[in-house]
């Protein structure tokens, strides 16, 4: 499953994994802001950002092809908006939408694939991200997994009786979506109960406490500095 793969990636030992989550978040946020401000004249910038991110992939000791391909998962969504731009006579803008979408997705993927979720949330907490937002992220992550597991179980059940899930008609599929929601809700409730029974008070405690060291500060400064420099020097 995809979530299990990212979870596994986040546990790999590499120079990038060893960096403090806060340092990686700062670097990723700066990168995302730089990417968001790219204009249709910034093609060199795009190429350099891609090169920068592609350099980070081997540093993370993660499979390069899988990472680069997984980041493309966002493209179908970006494509919808790109098509609207292309149809309205702005092909440059359409291309830039796709490029910005891919670069942002690659940045975010590198962050989550090199940082275990509890450390990532702790990193955001250090940066004073609102606690409520972090709790939402925490539960969203846990329950998305539940939703995927329930959907997979239902797909197997439907497939075993209907021959293929594609054999379901729209009306049945709509009913199945309702059942999926109800099942996921029930399971989410069971998980929440199990967490509360073990002392969960809205905060998942961090098991491995990482101190923010000088190399972490250097990493954040160099990564953010590079991203900003590229954006300022090139058009």
């Amino acid at each position: 499953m995809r979530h299990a793969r990212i979870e596994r990636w986040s546990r790999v030992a590499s120079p990038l994994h060893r960096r403090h989550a806060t340092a990686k978040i700062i670097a990723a946020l700066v990168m995302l802001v730089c990417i968001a401000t790219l204009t249709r004249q910034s093609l060199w910038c795009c190429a350099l950002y891609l090169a920068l991110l592609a350099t980070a992939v081997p540093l993370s000791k993660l499979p390069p092809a899988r990472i680069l391909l997984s980041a493309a998962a966002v493209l179908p969504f970006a494509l919808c908006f790109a098509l609207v731009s292309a149809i309205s006579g702005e092909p440059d803008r359409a291309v830039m939408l796709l490029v910005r979408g891919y670069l942002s997705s690659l940045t975010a993927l590198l962050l989550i694939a090199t940082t275990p979720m509890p450390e990532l949330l702790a990193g955001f907490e250090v940066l004073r991200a609102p606690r409520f937002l972090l709790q939402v992220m925490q539960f969203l992550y846990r329950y998305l997994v539940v939703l995927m597991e329930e959907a997979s179980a239902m797909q197997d059940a439907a497939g075993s009786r209907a021959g293929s899930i594609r054999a379901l008609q729209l009306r049945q599929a709509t009913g199945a979506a309702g059942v999926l929601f109800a099942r996921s809700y029930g399971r989410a409730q069971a998980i929440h109960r199990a967490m509360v029974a073990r002392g969960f008070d809205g905060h998942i405690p961090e098991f491995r406490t990482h101190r923010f060291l000088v190399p972490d500060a250097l990493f954040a400064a160099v990564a953010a500095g590079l991203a900003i420099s590229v954006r300022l020097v090139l058009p």
Partner: protein
Amino acid sequence: MRNIVEVRELRYVYEDGTEALKKIDFELEAGETVALLGANGSGKTTFALHLNGILRATSGSVVIDGIAMSDKTLAEIRRRVGLVFQDSDNQLFMPTVLEDVAFGPLASGKSPEEAAEKANAALTQVGMAHKAGKAPWHLSAGEKKRVAIAGILAGDPKLLVLDEPTTFLDPPGQRGLADLLESLPQAKLLITHDVPFAQRLTERGVFFEAGAIAAKDRIPAIVERFGW
């Protein structure tokens, strides 16, 4: 022996008005094991959820280890009562076995070092120390159950409440679980349909029927009386 659980006239009514528990009186001594038997929907699990404060009584009282259940004592009571849920997949939510088992001690304010020590000791106790670095979803059903129990033991509870502990387990897994539970000194409340499993661990049974306790007796007597 002093009582670890004292429940008096416990009633629980759902928001729709359904009375799920009807004036339950129940005691359990420290170190004792009791099996809760009864049909699905008879109120066994609803009752067990009151012992840890997951559900709160509509009326009546729940006293655990001499502490009356209230908002103020909830954290203290949860440290004393460990719930092992039917589906271990719902209970294991951290990325590695060690981190999952350490969750309870960390949540109760222990340092990461103390939590790791407790977690390792609990994993050794259930024979799962060699799987500490594994992801929970890579374990077999029997191993998951053991890890779920370790997660509870790491919090040093005085009472273990096990909801259908043999579900998903093959016969060797069931025997292994019974051996493990026999070796644990804590008081235990077994919610189960598995009569032979219950009989291996205890003589004493409580039979639930339509939200009320219909009998407190030796398990063979209950089986005979209710055709169970």
